[in-house]
């Protein structure tokens, strides 16, 4: 894959953040944290199916499925780690429903592009980058 392309949902999420004054972006991030869906019963009962994202300071686990050419991403993170939940939520919403090629074409620096580097700090953004890279690797393995 030589070209990158930001899929529509992730582009909309990025633009929503960038349209807000920097001080208000944390509130939008909190909305994403609250929207992270619970994982399915099957995944909840089989934590070995998930992969820990070591780049995040809080325990976050992701699981990416590829079925019939469509990617679905699941993630869990504890309520006391809302930033991590929000990052997971953005990727779950932005990746689910894409084709494997579309996921692999997401620019690796997408997390740096959504206007949170100053509000959240570069180190914390690194956790989202780790999550994206691991999701892509799972797609590569499972496609």
């Amino acid at each position: 894959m030589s070209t990158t392309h930001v899929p529509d949902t992730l582009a909309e999420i990025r633009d929503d953040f960038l349209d807000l004054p920097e001080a208000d972006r944390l509130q939008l991030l909190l909305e994403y944290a609250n929207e992270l869906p619970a994982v399915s019963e099957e995944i909840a009962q089989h934590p070995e199916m998930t992969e820990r994202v070591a780049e995040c300071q809080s325990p976050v686990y992701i699981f990416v499925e590829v079925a019939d050419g469509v990617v679905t991403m699941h993630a869990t993170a504890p309520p006391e780690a809302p930033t991590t939940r929000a990052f997971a939520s953005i990727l779950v919403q932005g990746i689910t429903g894409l084709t494997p090629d579309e996921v692999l074409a997401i620019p690796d620096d997408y997390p740096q592009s959504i206007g949170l580097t100053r509000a959240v700090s570069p180190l914390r953004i690194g956790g989202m980058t780790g999550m994206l890279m691991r999701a892509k690797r799972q797609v590569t393995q499972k496609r």
Partner: protein
Amino acid sequence: MTIEFDTSSAKFADYAEPGRLVTTEWLAAHLGEPGLVVVESDEDVLLYETGHIPGSVKVDWHTELNDPVVRDYVDGAGFAALLSRKGISRDDTVVIYGDKNNWWAAYALWVFSLFGHDDVRLLDGGRDRWISEGREITTEAPAPAATNYPVVERDDSALRAYKDDVVSFIGTGPLIDVRSPEEYNGERTTAPAYPEEGALRAGHIPTAQSVPWGKAVAEDGGFRTRAELDAIYRDGAGVTDGDDIVAYCRIGERSSHTWFVLKHLLGFDKVRNYDGSWTEWGSAVRVPIVTGSEPGSL
């Protein structure tokens, strides 16, 4: 001192400075009193927004206490602007609380101390205890009236150690390594389950005693008693009165917690936090490093 000390706790009374801690009961009874500002400081930048002690203001270590460019803390003007924005006056009583047994709260307290803010205390048990006791939290953002906090130049000399200080310090006094045993031994450069923060080598500074920060925390999430802390640091790590002590961890946050214990609860006079810590030492060229479970020598 603007607000009276919390004298309700027998545990606190044994500490060198009992007034450095407050109980959740005390804080609940004093919320809203003029001269008291409650500050939440967490690892997670959004945790405060999910609900906080009514009236408390947030201070974030990444985005507010650190200089955005240089690896350093804000300067006098930056600190004055920050505290003015948070509605804190120079003579206010500041009570800080946070997640993870007050790691980041202790870190914030240490930074406040670099600027000589006199009356700054921790909530024993931190955020978790307040919430587990079912006390009120709110998502309502406070709108404190801005104050005019004076520009006070930061004085690092008494409370902060730099790498070169530590190089010449080895062998002259106790060094306390508060990281996990795996980090101390050299099996890994980061805390278990924490992200890689860029240290090239693993191990510890020669002569450093391993006393993981969490040893100072009791099962109930508060600080251990004076007798327990004496056993850990005096008997266990061999720290004695009159010692010049330096504590370090990975970026200086966990060692702020230990710094608070040594300085304010046990009353050691000269305690410095080496905030460069392992992310600096473990990448510095030609500084001595020891691996394994023994402190080692220079």
